[in-house]
């Protein structure tokens, strides 16, 4: 029973926090946002230089062999600084598919390019009516010779504009909501037959709706079993949910800190508004919400490494419920306690609120995961 970071983990935290303090203040972020696809290539290069893009990969594949705790540390830091660069899409999800399901050849082809920062990924999974169900897939992949032909539409693909490689879920067999018959494909973003509509998202990231029309890929594009990859998808998405929990904790930490500072400096009726008990109690409730979220982020991080798929899934679902409740409360109250200034794009607090809000609706919201925990019979 030990919640402390190891010496190496502490150093990692210091170095990533240090890097972001130096190069990711609110004004820098505004500039990065204006670059093509919504993030900074130079900043991505700095993350690569610090070795952050190679953390979770096995040493044999050129990575550092780090575990879930290291990803948690990085995601918290990225959340704290409201980072735009596609760490989740590339390292956690793209890298996750390669780590959990990729062949040696696929790893050799893609992992070094993730680690050195030369390629980024995007996960083309959400469909118009799929909502949060990972098995709800209408995009098809049909066998043609040795390869496959992909047809369909994917929505809100984060980093869809800049990504070099798309990871696409597509149905090879069965009906729309069947749990079998879903495969995972590595598709070059510039393949013939791909059209993209790119746009900024509510939280300042960038995404794209992507249409696949007769997109041909080779046999080597398949990750895992083309007819039965839902378990793989669930495993990687569980990693992504866990990473989002940690990012949300970083965002909430910073939101609370910023709000408490505001309470100490903003004066009304001749005194700092932080002297008013109703506001003090609200801030205390925010603190409680953040701590409960932090506990569940740690719980999810530990569960993510478990090979017991059921236990892993319900633990991470439980964490996403707690994070969802906490982030809504902390996000909304941060705005409330800032008053009018919290409503403006000038103040950074609103940007934290918007990112937190979008996290709730990514890979399952609070109700969705509460239902999953309920169906699993609770936690005990």
């Amino acid at each position: 029973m030990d919640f402390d970071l190891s010496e190496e983990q502490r150093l990692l935290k210091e170095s990533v926090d240090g890097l972001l303090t130096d190069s990711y203040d609110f004004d820098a972020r505004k500039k990065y946002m204006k670059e093509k696809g919504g993030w900074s290539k130079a900043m991505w290069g700095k993350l690569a230089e610090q070795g952050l893009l190679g953390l979770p990969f096995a040493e044999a594949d050129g990575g550092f062999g780090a575990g879930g705790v290291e990803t948690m540390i990085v995601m918290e830091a990225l959340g704290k600084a409201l980072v735009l660069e596609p760490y989740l899409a590339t390292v956690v999800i793209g890298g996750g598919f390669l780590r959990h399901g990729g062949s040696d050849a696929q790893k050799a082809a893609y992992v070094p390019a993730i680690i050195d920062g030369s390629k980024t990924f995007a996960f083309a999974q959400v469909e118009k009516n799929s909502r949060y169900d990972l098995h709800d897939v209408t995009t098809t992949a049909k066998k043609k010779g040795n390869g496959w032909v992909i047809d369909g539409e994917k929505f809100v693909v984060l980093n869809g504009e800049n990504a070099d490689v798309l990871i696409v879920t597509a149905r090879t067999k069965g009906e729309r909501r069947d749990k079998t018959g879903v495969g995972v494909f590595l598709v070059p973003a510039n393949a013939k037959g791909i059209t993209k509509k790119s746009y900024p998202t509510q939280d300042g990231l960038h995404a794209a709706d992507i249409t696949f029309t007769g997109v041909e890929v080779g046999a080597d594009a398949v990750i895992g079993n083309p007819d039965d990859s839902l378990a793989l998808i669930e495993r990687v998405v569980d990693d992504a949910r866990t990473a989002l929990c940690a990012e949300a904790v970083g965002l909430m930490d910073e939101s609370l800190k910023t709000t408490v500072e505001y309470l100490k400096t903003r004066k009304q009726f001749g005194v700092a508004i932080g002297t008013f008990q109703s506001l003090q109690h609200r801030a205390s409730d925010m603190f409680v919400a953040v701590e409960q979220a932090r506990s569940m982020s740690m719980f999810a991080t530990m569960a993510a490494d478990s090979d017991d798929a059921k236990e892993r899934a319900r633990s991470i679902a439980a964490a996403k419920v707690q994070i969802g409740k906490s982030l809504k409360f902390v996000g909304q109250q941060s705005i409330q306690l800032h008053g009018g200034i919290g409503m403006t794009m000038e103040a950074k607090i609103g940007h934290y609120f918007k990112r937190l809000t979008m996290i709730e609706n990514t890979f399952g919201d609070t109700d969705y995961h509460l239902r999953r925990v309920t169906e699993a019979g609770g936690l005990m």
Partner: protein
Amino acid sequence: MDLAFTKEEMAFREEVREFFKNNVPPETRRKLVEGRHLSKDEMVTWWRILNKKGWGVSHWPKEYGGTGWTSVQHYIFNEELQSYPAPAPLAFGVSMVGPVIYTFGNEEQKKKYLPRIANVDDWWCQGFSEPGSGSDLASLKTKAERKGDKWIINGQKTWTTLAQHADMIFCLCRTDPSAKKQTGISFIVFSMKSKGVTVRPIQTIDGGVEVNEVFFDDVEVPYENLIGEENKGWDYAKFLLGNERTGIARVGMSKERIRRIKDLASKVESNGRPVIEDPGFREKLAACEIELKALELTQLRVVADENKHGKGKPNPASSVLKIKGSEIQQTTTELLMEVIGPLAAPFDVHGEDGSNEAMEWTAQIAPTYFNYRKVSIYGGSNEIQRNIIAKAVLGL
């Protein structure tokens, strides 16, 4: 970071569990499960079994009968005790006055009181709150005047839990009326059998008589019953209240409640089917389980921190435990009410000593719900806890 217990810790959990299974009187356990109040005999009998095993005052220093367990072991012991369930040691003696006596008392007082506390030869009660002094405890008015080798005590205490059983009371009394409010208070212990002590039971909204008013009318107490220094009582009171940090979350107890809710909800019907199959009810229960899991983890963070770094600087997360712990306990009592529906109505009558047995177990569900409104009020109300977080953690 590692959430697993060590092999030794797991073996310890087994040992504790096995001991409870073989030694808690089944009737005592059943009454606790059903939320009934125990008689004095039932409680004392169990505490003496526990003390004989050497676990009665587990967290005391070894020289006074403690176990020398690690923070994690204490955590495991408490969790198993609450979730079996077995009655917790009498807090007023074991967790409150005991540590004050072995920390601030003189050798004679230690020799005189500590073994009797451990074996519950004396039942202790707490004389802190007064009718005009709740959250603002330091405004208390009960007076102790020195007269030769005696104190003469006059005043009134209230909310004195189980004073009807008590042999001894530890009391905050004002000994220097001219001093600023926190500085003129002393910590004095005396017999509840003293002339001039009157106990009047207060019936609470659950129908029970757990708490009392206690009146002091020229009560004569030997001067040597002062613990520590004169007018330093407030420091000892703060020490006493700060002692119980992690037990207050009562995770084990809420786990036991949730198991009971699941058990009852699979037996009681709604709409022709077991309540547990009602989707709305199930979601509420799952939401409660998730809150409890988060609390358990928060508590483990505090425990692991203490285990590794000692108790020196309290972990800020510890201030979450009282607020969340009490809220979750209250939620479990609401869920029980929901399970039982109209059968919650019959009212059970309590015996003179506060125990009750007469009616069906269903009659205890509503009283437990009513009774548990107390947990967000006592031990520093949840509003006081929020003041503490705002000041001590957030610096507001």
